[in-house]
């Protein structure tokens, strides 16, 4: 039997009156690539942040590789280290070089030696097309380079799952296709991916399943064809009509 690497059950999260997540339940199998789409304010980002325990949930439960998330638990950091997060605005550490950004958590969290961390970081930089940028600082990188560096930083911990929170939204079209290419590359690598995006092309290229969210609920989830090509759900149809118009 294939294990569920992510399991969300009846997850609710409100911000005041607003229900960001309203009874969300779904499971992800190891190695699956899920692309989450939907209008802004649908709760897509909140869901990702909850899966990385950056956000509390009000009720329900989330389990990563059969470990239930609990933000107050002292081992929460260990669970987080298995889940990489790629932010819309990169959030690279500006006081560290690119190499420093990629090696910090390896040394501090994984307790790897400086040599080992450097070697792996250099390997990652090469793999993601950033050879020669090791000594640059985040402010000296373009948007696309920054996001690729941020992906290297997340990958440096060999996470089981990688979460992309609108990772291409802050980028110009050229850098965007750059990062999408990286996502494709990662998808072939066998890592479990959860991608929140406004780019339906990403869904078509990468997704095993597409999840459509609206007003904090999962409206539809299924294979790309079922959701994006021949949608049955009225809200999905409306959304697609608007986006593709």
């Amino acid at each position, binding site marked *: 039997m294939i294990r569920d690497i992510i399991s969300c059950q009846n997850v609710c999260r409100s911000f005041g009156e607003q229900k960001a997540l309203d009874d969300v339940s779904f499971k992800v199998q190891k190695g699956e690539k899920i692309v989450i789409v939907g209008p802004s304010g649908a709760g897509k980002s909140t869901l990702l942040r909850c899966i990385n325990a950056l956000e509390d949930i009000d009720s329900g439960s989330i389990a990563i590789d059969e470990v239930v998330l609990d933000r107050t638990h002292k081992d929460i950091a260990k669970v987080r280290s298995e889940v990489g997060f790629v932010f819309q605005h990169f959030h690279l550490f500006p006081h560290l070089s690119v190499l420093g950004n990629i090696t910090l958590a390896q040394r*501090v969290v994984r307790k790897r030696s400086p040599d080992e961390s450097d070697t792996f970081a250099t390997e990652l930089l090469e793999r993601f097309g950033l050879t020669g940028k090791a000594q640059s600082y985040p402010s000296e990188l373009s948007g696309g380079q920054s996001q690729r560096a941020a992906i290297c930083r997340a990958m440096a911990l060999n996470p089981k799952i990688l979460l992309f929170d609108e990772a291409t939204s802050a980028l110009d079209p050229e850098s965007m296709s750059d990062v999408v290419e990286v996502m494709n590359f990662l998808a072939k690598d066998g890592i479990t991916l959860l991608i929140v995006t406004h780019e339906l092309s990403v869904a078509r290229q990468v997704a095993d399943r597409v999840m459509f969210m609206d007003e904090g609920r999962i409206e539809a989830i299924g294979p790309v064809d079922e959701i994006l090509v021949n949608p049955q759900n009225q809200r999905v149809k409306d959304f697609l009509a608007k986006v593709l118009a």
Partner: protein
Amino acid sequence: MDEILQWLIGQLKLLGDIFVYLLPAVPATVEVTILSFALALAVGVVVGTVRVARIRIVSPLARVYTDVVRGVPLLVLIFFIYFGLGGVLNLGRLTAGVIALGVCYGAYIAEIFRAGILSIPQGQYEAALSLGMTRKQAFRHVIIPQALRMVIPPVANEFIACLKDSSLVSVIAMREITRAGREYFSRTFADFQVWLVVAILYLILTLTLSRLVSYMEKKFKMRGYGVAA
């Protein structure tokens, strides 16, 4: 004409005399300032961090400390520590002076440092956590190194202010520049000349410090800090 010249020469000789008399007291001023400020930095970084970290019991205590110290005049603090605590604990003049200044400036620096930490975008903290760092590790490796660079200019201001406020320890008979000035004054009553030289000496010290600070700012500047989100 001759009389004016004579007077001028006399004045210059007097100023020179005062200068020579005060010069040996300069190291004492520098010593008190550096020791107090080192203490203040240590106290400030710890208290400032504790205040942001919201630790039970400790953080409210840190708040009480900053509130109390900022609300009491430094002069009163010096009297209290030297005559009050000093009597019981047998503190010397230098020790009492350093503690008073250090405790006082520690509170100011704690506030500056707290603001520095709060100015670091939340995303930095979240990025650190998402990489599996604990709260402590996130502070130590991501937040504090950035906050330290942010607070260099305001902390440098406090350093200069601390140097000037070190003149207050003259009231507990620590023989630094101001105290030496008072000694010379009580022997000669040359008030204008004495305080002029004292002022010039402080000015030389503070200007030197400002230079040093701008050098440090350049040296520790993050490459293009603030451009990356």
